[in-house]
């Protein structure tokens, strides 16, 4: 069984010396500032009321950036073990499949048989409480 010698503290995989920890603390604060700024940015951009497709892309880019900072530095992923990376890569792949599958099923069917989704939702009248809806199938709906 291989035993690699870590440089400082192989029991914890990280350095517990006061200097090292203090350096880490400074890093955490920088990340916090970055996250705060990015939060502000994403809220500010949302006030422009951009069209949905643009808004989604920008929001996702910012969210992924923020998420990566949290994961890399607060969760120490940046210095984590290969095994954890492997588990996460696998998870992200399956997560992607889950995002894609249901949506693409509908997209593909809609492409092949336009209007096949007869009973489209009517959530537009969002302010009203649930009430009886008319029975006619709405063939003239637009996919969002």
């Amino acid at each position, binding site marked *: 069984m291989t035993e690699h010698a870590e440089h400082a503290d192989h029991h914890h995989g990280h350095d*517990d010396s006061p200097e090292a920890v203090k350096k880490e603390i400074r890093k*955490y604060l920088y990340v916090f500032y970055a996250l705060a700024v990015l939060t502000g940015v994403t809220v500010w951009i*949302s006030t422009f009321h951009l069209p949905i497709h643009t808004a989604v892309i920008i929001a996702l880019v910012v969210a992924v950036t923020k998420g990566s900072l*949290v994961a890399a530095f607060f969760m120490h992923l940046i210095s984590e073990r290969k095994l*954890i990376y492997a588990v996460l890569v696998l998870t992200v792949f399956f997560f992607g499949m889950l*995002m894609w599958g249901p949506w693409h099923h509908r997209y593909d069917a809609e492409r092949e048989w336009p209007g096949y989704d007869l009973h489209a*939702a009517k959530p537009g009248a*969002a302010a009203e409480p*649930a009430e009886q809806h008319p029975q006619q199938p709405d063939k003239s709906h637009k996919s*969002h």
Partner: protein
Amino acid sequence: MTAHAESLHAVEGHDAHHEIEIPYTVHARPDTGLYNGKLGIWLFLASEVMLFGALFSTLILLRTSAPTWPRGWEELNITLATINTFNLIASSVTVVLAWANLRLGNLKRGKLFLGITLLCGFIFMGIKAVEYASKFQHHHYPSTNNFFATYFVMTGLHGLHVLGGMVVFTYLLLTADKWYAKNRDQFTNRVEVTGLYWHFVDLVWIFLFPTLYLL
């Protein structure tokens, strides 16, 4: 078949106590570089990614197939949610500071930061309660339409996870003195592991917030 000695019974080499020594509970195993709890929590978080993933998938399907869907600002309180976002991010910082202080041997500061983290949790739930109450006052329920259904389920499940974290932080605070004295490294690990869970809860919110409120 075997013609061999009668059974040997397993006897502990050292004086028997009822707790079995499980290796690598506190210190990392050399070839994986991990202690058990850390691997365990990452695996659990992987499963949580899939759990929230299913809800995001639901949102994507329902939203893209709906003819109309309100923009977030039309229905939801962005100010309150933004405050909560800063709040949660701050609590992520405080929990990792708690862990850092424990590694430095500073139990008091460690407990202080754990306490602030817990407080942030209370603030988060408080603001959520205000949001939900306002929705109900305007007769917006999960049954109103799928926009609200997804809003309530996703933030509700996330809120339950915040609550769960708060319960654990409370337990850690209450038992800190005892555990720190008994096994300092193990307690520090427990804070690290709980912190990882808490960061994940923060991570989910980082995606939930723009998705529900800003799009």
